[in-house]
């Protein structure tokens, strides 16, 4: 069961990476990155149980805090020009570039 959970979480992380690459806006990428971080917390916890080493939970706790701080740290710069999104048009792909 634990191995199946590991594989499922790895698949979810893969989906998050795909969304992170596809975009289209910068915010989608940040969201995908946040989800990747949360899933890596779960992955580390499950791996700790799978390998019989519950000390991994400390690392998972640190990852939880780092994940939050990195998202807030990126959003700290949300006043800068790269974060501005063009007014919404149904099929504009211009905001895809970072």
């Amino acid at each position, binding site marked *: *069961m634990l191995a199946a*959970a590991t594989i499922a979480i790895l698949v979810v992380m893969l989906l998050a990476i795909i969304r992170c690459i596809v975009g289209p806006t910068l*915010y989608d990428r940040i969201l995908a990155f*946040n989800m990747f971080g949360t899933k890596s917390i779960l992955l580390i916890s499950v791996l700790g149980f799978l390998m019989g080493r519950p000390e991994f939970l400390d690392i998972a706790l640190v990852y939880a805090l780092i994940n939050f701080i990195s998202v807030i740290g990126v959003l700290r710069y*949300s006043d800068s020009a790269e974060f501005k999104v063009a007014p919404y048009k149904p099929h504009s792909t211009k905001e895809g570039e970072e």
Partner: protein
Amino acid sequence: MNLVIEIISGLSLLIGCFLCLSGGVGMLRFPDFYTRMHAVSVTDTLGACLVLFGLMLQSPNGLVLIKLILILLCTLFINPSASHALAKAALRNGLLPLEGKPDNQGGNKPSKL
């Protein structure tokens, strides 16, 4: 008794993984940023809860249990704040939702677009 705990743990791990997978699929299928955010919050709340709950039932001693509860609490407190900050930054920088109608936006919403 041991078998019952084992079965409940496996079941909650299974449902949690299914919810996480659904969230990942929703992340790819949904049309715009704000709707994707709802898909992510599925994996963050009940998905993480069930996976960690399944691990809690297998925990060998009390300290591991407390640490798992700490991780769960961190996830539950941190993720709403992070997604709120993200949504607020996106709205303030002009990323409009997909079907936000203009009459819904203009009149009563006191935001700084």
